C-alpha cells in the first residue's frame, strides 16, 4: 500500500459477516434510491419547466450531496480507516447530508414562496382540473380510435 494511504487506511476489509453484508446491501440500495430521486427530479423539471426556477435546483443539489454521502457510506464498509481519519471522514460524510438538508429547506421555502405568489390564498377550482383530465382522456380516446 502506498505510504500516503497507510496514514489514513489501516486495511481493506475482505471478510464480511451477515450483518455487514446486510448493511452493504442497504447502503448500496440507498445509492440506487438517490439515483432514482435524481431521475425523478429531472423528469419533474421536464414535465413542469416552471419548477426549475423555484426549488428544483436546490433539490438536485440535495440529491447530489446525498449521493456523495451514500457512496461514502458504501466505501467505508470496505475500508478500515485509522480512528483519527475515520472521525474526520464520518463528520465530512454527515456534513454532506446536513448541507443537503439545509439546501432542501431553502428549496422548500422557495417553492412555498413561489406557490404563494402564484396561487395566493385562492383555491384552485377542482372542476377545472377535472375538465382538463376529461379533455385529455377524450383526445387520447380519439387518437386510439
Amino acid at each position: 500500500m502506498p505510504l500516503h494511504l497507510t496514514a489514513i487506511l489501516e486495511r481493506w476489509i475482505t471478510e464480511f459477516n451477515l450483518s455487514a453484508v446486510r448493511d452493504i446491501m442497504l447502503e448500496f440500495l440507498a445509492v440506487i434510491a438517490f439515483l432514482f430521486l435524481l431521475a425523478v427530479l429531472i423528469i419533474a423539471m421536464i414535465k413542469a419547466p416552471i419548477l426549475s426556477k423555484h426549488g428544483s435546483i436546490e433539490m438536485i443539489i440535495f440529491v447530489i450531496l446525498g449521493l456523495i454521502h451514500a457512496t461514502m457510506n458504501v466505501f467505508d464498509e470496505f475500508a478500515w480507516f485509522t480512528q483519527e481519519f475515520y472521525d474526520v471522514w464520518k463528520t465530512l460524510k454527515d456534513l454532506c447530508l446536513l448541507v443537503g438538508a439545509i439546501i432542501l429547506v431553502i428549496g422548500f421555502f422557495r417553492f412555498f414562496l413561489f406557490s404563494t405568489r402564484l396561487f395566493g390564498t385562492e383555491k384552485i377550482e377542482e372542476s377545472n382540473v377535472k375538465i382538463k383530465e376529461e379533455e385529455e382522456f377524450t383526445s387520447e380516446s380519439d387518437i386510439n380510435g
Partner: protein
Amino acid sequence: MLHSMGEWIIGNDQILTFTVEISIFVGFVIISILLFLLHHRFPQITRNGWIELVIGAPFIALKGLFDALDTINDSLHDIFDSLEASFLLIGLVLLGIGLLRIALYSAKVWEVR
C-alpha cells in the same frame, strides 16, 4: 433499562460528528413541518404525493437520529447502523414517489391555470 443498552458516552472528538448528525435530524423535522404548512395552505396542489413526502421526511430524520445514537453507543452500534440504513432507504423511496406524483399533478394544475 438504559444500563442494559450499554454505555452512552460522547467523546470530545465525537461532539462535532454527533452535533452534525442531530442537525440532520432537526433539518428533516423542519422539512416535515414545512410540508404540513404547505399542505395546510395549498390543499389542492399538495393533494397528490404529499402523503409520501410527509412520511418520507420523518423517516430520513430518524436516519439522522440513529446515526447520532450509533456514534455515542458502541454496544448497539450495529443495530443503530442497520436502522439508519433502512430508514434512509425507505425515506428516499417515499420522497422519490412523492416528488414525482406532486410534480406530475402540479404540471397539470399549472397548465389549467
